């Protein structure tokens, strides 16, 4: 005879439930996520959705205003702006994600290691972080470009370096409190290696602030890439990049063809806006103290 229980079945919260709860509680954050997804889809499927070749000049259609043929108009070389913005999303997101992930990961490891070891290692690492924080980004970028040349990889390197100390600082302050908890002492007395304690016991405990910071970093990296490309230190022609699209023609044709200046800037602003809104909402959802604010 089998026992029949009247207890209600335990309902595990699915991923879908969590998402709809997030959408209800954080409408602005959800809007931000939608903007990020639109940019990501544009970047990933640029070949299929872009109406024109982004690098093809059409001298018969130079500085054409938005029309049925060219929804966002054309630039001074007759290139379709919508297609360049769609392909530009790919450049922006690749640089944004790679530099923020690499910078964030290095900052995470250095921040946790600095807090874990303390003493002279912490002092030396903090002084190095001070130097990198105080060092002007533009000189770093100019030097990287002058030494290694322009291109996506070098732009990523130039943007990654300043992100490392910012991440390390925040992670270190979180990790300092974790260092004192008994299970870290227990792990030490059990003879676990430093790398095991750092990577398996300390890093997972600082992942929440780290993830929140990462979303902000992606937006900052996209802005930095746009600024460097605008100065001619980032991605080079004919690669479609939003900052690059604002260089030269955008100012020269500002009064006669304002769409050249308006739409790429709008793409940058909306994407970074999306990352910022989503990051804020994520922080509010994860951090119990922030829920009330």
């Amino acid at each position, binding site marked *: 005879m089998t026992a029949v229980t009247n207890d209600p079945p335990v309902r595990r919260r699915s991923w879908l439930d969590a998402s709809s709860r997030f959408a209800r509680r954080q409408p602005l954050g959800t809007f931000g996520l939608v903007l990020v997804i639109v940019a990501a889809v544009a970047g990933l499927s640029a070949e299929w959705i872009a109406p024109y070749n982004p690098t093809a000049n059409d001298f018969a259609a130079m500085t054409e205003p938005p029309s049925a043929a060219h929804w966002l108009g054309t630039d001074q070389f007759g290139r379709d702006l919508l297609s360049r913005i769609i392909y530009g999303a790919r450049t922006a997101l690749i640089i944004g994600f790679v530099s923020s992930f690499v910078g964030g990961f290095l900052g995470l490891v250095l921040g946790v290691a600095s807090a874990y070891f303390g003493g002279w290692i912490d002092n030396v690492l903090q002084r190095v972080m001070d130097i990198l924080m105080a060092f002007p980004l*533009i000189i770093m970028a100019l030097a990287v470009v002058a*030494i290694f040349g322009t291109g996506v990889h070098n732009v990523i390197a130039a943007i990654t370096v300043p992100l490392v100390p910012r991440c390390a600082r925040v992670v270190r302050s979180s990790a300092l409190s974790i260092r004192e908890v008994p299970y870290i002492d227990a792990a030490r007395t059990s003879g676990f290696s430093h790398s095991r304690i750092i990577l398996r016991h300390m890093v997972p405990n600082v992942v929440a602030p780290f993830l929140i910071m990462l979303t902000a970093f992606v*937006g900052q990296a996209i802005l930095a890439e746009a600024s460097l490309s605008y100065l001619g230190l980032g991605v080079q022609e004919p690669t479609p990049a939003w900052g690059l699209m604002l260089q030269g023609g955008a100012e020269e044709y500002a009064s006669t063809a304002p769409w050249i200046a*308006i739409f790429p800037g709008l793409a940058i602003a909306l994407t970074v806006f999306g990352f*910022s809104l989503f990051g804020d909402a994520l922080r509010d959802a994860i951090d119990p103290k922030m829920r009330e604010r």
Partner: protein
Amino acid sequence: MYRYILNRLLLSIPTLIGAAALVFVLMRLIPGDICMVRLGGSGGTVSPSALAACHAQIGLERPLPLQFLDFIGGFAVGDFGTSMWSGKPVIQEIASRLPVSLEIALLATIVAVAIAIPLGTISALKQNSWLDHVVRTVAIAGIATPSFWLGILSILIVLDVSHYLFGHPWMPSIDYVPLWDDPLGNLSIVILPAITIGYRYSAVTMRMTRSAMLEVLREDYIRTARAKGLIEQLIVNRHALKNAMLPVVTLVGIEFAFLIGGLVVTEQVFNLNGIGRLFVQAVQNQDYTLTQALVMLTVAIFVVTNLVVDVLYAWLDPRIRFG
């Protein structure tokens, strides 16, 4: 307190030496030779003797460790040397470009603080109201909008409005005039860049003000002040705002320190000859002495601003004592 300041100043020495070493190495890793550019232009040929004479004249023939010690020693006594490109004293080069950058940075800070503190405070007092949502969205938009794009748009608006009003497009002069020589002319040059940067700067400060105010407004002493019947305006102005200003002062200080050397893009958009553009020109010309001096100036401003901010902490919050 003097002991604390002295400790902090001593701690800043390794930071300054590290930054000096970094810029020294980076500049020498850049391929090319300033003497080749100076003597022959980009495509010319230069005789080895002329090249050697040029190297000797600007001190590049000396061993690298000696060049580094010269640089550090000069910095310690306030002697930045002469520009390798123009031959003028570095101090003179910087002094001619600093006023415009400094004025824009100061004006941007005033714009930012004037917008951010009232709006951030109102946003915190009216938490979760439609006003709070609008202020927060405007703040996030300010952080997301590239300042150079805002600069381009503001130029576009000025051109269109002036064309509409006067029948021809008008833009302010790009030649900087000091404030005391021509106040209106000066203001017309710096106001647009200051607003452009000030908006982003105010957005960051606004978020910090709101967050700090929310934290302070939940403190026990605020509840006590309310319980004893103090009027809300006094609670906010006298008790909450002063304590909430701690992180805001830090942020304003750090952002200001970044602004001095970080105006490159804005100066490019508005065609202004400030410190930011001097940075770019110095690196492109491989002017080691000028680049090194500019980096040290930026790092020193950063270090001193951080110290001043920490000292201001004690003034704003007597609970803080220096360890």
